């Protein structure tokens, strides 16, 4: 335990245990905590006090942006920059322009959904202190973890460890900073 401590990592058997533990931890005043699970566990987010999810907003904005780009491009090309008579149709043949408008809307929105999710999740982030903990490799398989970070004002190595033990985890590990 030479390296400075980044936090404490408690390992749990099941999703339910984790949710319960997370709730208690959060209620007892720890804010800088994080829960890890191998699949989305319902209610875990609010358990650790995560409320505002901005992904939908990003997608909405980009969607609208896409729509405007789509129709704008077509209108500009067909009616403004090089107006030319195609098959006797008017320059702004809006019914013909609907489809590409739609496609670009979806394209922009769709890409923004994933990119937005990654950015908001601060990914890619290949390195993270929790990876230092050996058993954490099962966080992506069949184990559930709760981490209280040292950055939390209420954090105190021994205090917090005792508090976590109170939550009956399978194990508790230090998360070394290096």
């Amino acid at each position, binding site marked *: 335990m030479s390296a400075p401590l980044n936090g404490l990592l408690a390992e749990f058997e099941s*999703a*339910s245990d984790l*949710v*319960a533990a*997370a709730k208690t931890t959060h209620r007892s005043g720890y804010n800088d905590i*994080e829960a*890890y*699970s*191998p*699949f*989305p*566990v*319902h*209610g*875990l*987010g609010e*358990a*650790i006090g*995560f409320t505002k*999810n901005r*992904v*939908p907003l990003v*997608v909405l904005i980009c969607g609208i942006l896409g729509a405007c780009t789509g129709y704008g*491009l*077509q209108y500009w*090309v*067909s009616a403004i*920059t*090089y107006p030319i008579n*195609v*098959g006797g*149709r008017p320059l702004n*043949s809006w019914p*013909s322009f609907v*489809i*590409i408008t*739609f*496609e*670009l809307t*979806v394209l922009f*929105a*769709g*890409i923004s*959904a*994933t990119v*937005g*999710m*990654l950015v*908001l*999740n601060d*990914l*890619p*982030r*290949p*390195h993270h202190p929790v*990876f230092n903990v050996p058993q954490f490799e099962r*966080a*992506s*398989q*069949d184990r559930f973890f709760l981490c209280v970070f040292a950055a939390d004002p209420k954090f105190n190595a021994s205090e917090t460890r005792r508090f976590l033990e109170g939550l009956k985890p399978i194990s508790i590990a230090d998360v070394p900073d290096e």
Partner: protein
Amino acid sequence: MSTDPTIALAEEDREIPVLEPGHDMASVTAKISDIVLERPLSIAWVAGVMFCSGIVLMLGTAVTYLFFKGTGIWGINIPVGWGFAIVNFVWWIGIGHAGTLISAILHLLRQSWRNSINRFAEAMTLFAVMCAGLFPLIHTGRPWLAYWMFPIPNTMSYWPQFRSPLLWDVFAVSTYGTISLVFWYTGLIPDLATLRDRASNKYIRLIYGALAMGWRGEARHWERYESAYLLLAGLSTPLVLSVHTVVSFDFAISIMPGWHTTVFPPYFVAGAIYSGFAMVLILVIPVRAVYNLRDMITEKHLDIAAKVMLATGLIVAYGYILEIYMAWYAGPKSIDWFTVHNRFFGPYAGPYWMLWVCNIITPQVLWIKSIRRSPVLLFLISLVVLGGMWLERFVIIILSLHRDFVPSSWGMYYPTKWDWMTYIGTLGLFTTMIFLFCRVLPMISIFEIRMLLPESHVKHAAESHAPAAQLEGKHL
């Protein structure tokens, strides 16, 4: 549309679950990821890849020669300006539909069973779209100028012509391809993390590690992840329906008899799903046998897929009948009457009636439950349907073009060896990709399978979770 029967069925027969009992998180994780990480290379797999990539070489030859000589090496002519290239394009695009349909629409409809096959279907979609995308490019007379179809600023200050259905195609297909890729990758991220964490080889870990982008399964991540995934599903749903609609516009927008029909969009979409599911079955049936995944891709999946095929097949049949009805309604002096007459008795009557046999008559046996649940029979029927759907596009394109308004310009279309080489070549490309996919990525979405496990849902919480879980809960 296609989902009504499947929902009904989800209620109706419970005896076969979508995930055989006896699994826990560790076992599903191990089972799926080991196919990638632990399973030794089998001779059969290597041989398969070799053979298929050989076929890809043939494709390369055909395309190279095409670029040297021009599209004249194909059987096309005036009046039949489009031949195999467009037939194959529409066919592949159609096949590509199952993937997004399964992962997006069924996700919205909370069809838990899609969890075990969506990954596979999405991969299939990507590869199908790859093959499809090849054709619009190479079928042009001057492929090196195909970039003119994209709105790129240029020294001619001249731009694409946005009223053209072909251009809609370009946008629809490339959007579809991109979104499918994004959707697929998004779904892969947590599993990539799993692979990263299970891999014993340093380099493999590096690769998966890089691809997983440091996914840790944080609660916050999951929250955003799920909303993003849901939104993607929501966006892909109209997209997948639009793609084949747009493809159908290539024909519906024109004024050619046999093309100029308002029924095309729905009937094309149905046809696409039809062939898509056929392809899913053709791939899934051998794969679940070879990799011994019968417990995750159960007979229930086959059964549902079969029912979807049955339903969409009937919609397609409706399309065919409507065409005939319209001709009858327009009367014997109408060009429509002539077109249908030419389909029935013209020089291409053979393919036309073959189409009825493959697409409409054969699949009716799917009304029988035992057949729906017999992998072998399903496999064969799917093959027939795929052939039928290919014929459908052949009929729509060649038969409509070869005899239209002006009799002096009637003609015939005979494919050349180059047509065949190109077509078979894309089949090779497709299977090669599938082979590789099976070995380097989890064929089944591990984390979504985990969600099928009873232990996955939080017991104390009263409010509902993934109904999937509930459903399974009842089974077990």
